[in-house]
């Protein structure tokens, strides 16, 4: 069974204080790892897709990296508007060796950035 574990559960930062969020995964065959941002009462908002170990993606203050066992979301000099829950999800092959896009999510990291 595919498993995704995120840490920490919650993270409080001061504005400008850089940090990293972790996503550890166990899957039978990884097709892709996704990072989403979720604001309270809203749907997940797509941030990044990573396909293979060693890959990196950047967007503004966010940088996502991938190894064979985990992914990191690095936040550089965060601002209060970066406060949200960050979700990690994996797409893997199913028991039949195919993939129709099912995502397995972690429980998320609640990030709060204080001014």
């Amino acid at each position, binding site marked *: 069974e595919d498993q995704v574990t995120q840490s920490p559960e919650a993270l409080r930062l001061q504005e400008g204080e850089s940090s990293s969020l972790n996503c550890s995964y166990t899957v039978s065959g990884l097709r892709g790892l996704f990072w989403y941002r979720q604001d309270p009462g809203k749907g*997940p908002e797509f941030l990044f*897709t990573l396909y293979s170990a060693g890959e990196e993606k950047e967007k503004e203050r966010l940088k996502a990296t991938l190894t064979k066992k985990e992914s990191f979301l690095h936040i550089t000099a965060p601002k209060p508007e970066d406060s949200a829950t960050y979700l990690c999800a994996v797409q893997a092959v199913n028991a039949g060796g195919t993939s*129709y896009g099912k995502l*397995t999510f972690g429980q998320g990291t609640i990030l709060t950035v204080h001014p």
Partner: protein
Amino acid sequence: EPEVTQTPSHQVTQMGQEVILRCVPISNHLYFYWYRQILGQKVEFLVSFYNNEISEKSEIFDDQFSVERPDGSNFTLKIRSTKLEDSAMYFCASRLRLAGGVNEQFFGPGTRLTVL
């Protein structure tokens, strides 16, 4: 920018009643999904739909659930006889099928279902 829309934003129903949640996926997308998120818990996969049929479903998606694409734009989730434990936020998502089959899903804003 194209987006996934969902209606209603909040649905309150009595236990045992049928509900239909509606979604309009992004127009050129070919794969459609339903997920749910019980308050304080993970987002959970329910079902995927492609080429007018279910391609994959989870254990949660039992005989009480069904999906339909009644026309070229809408995608619906029906719960035949709601239970208290069906109370959750339901998200619709869609993705564009690309060569290799791996690309991001775009989520709607969700429908909050409350079963009394």
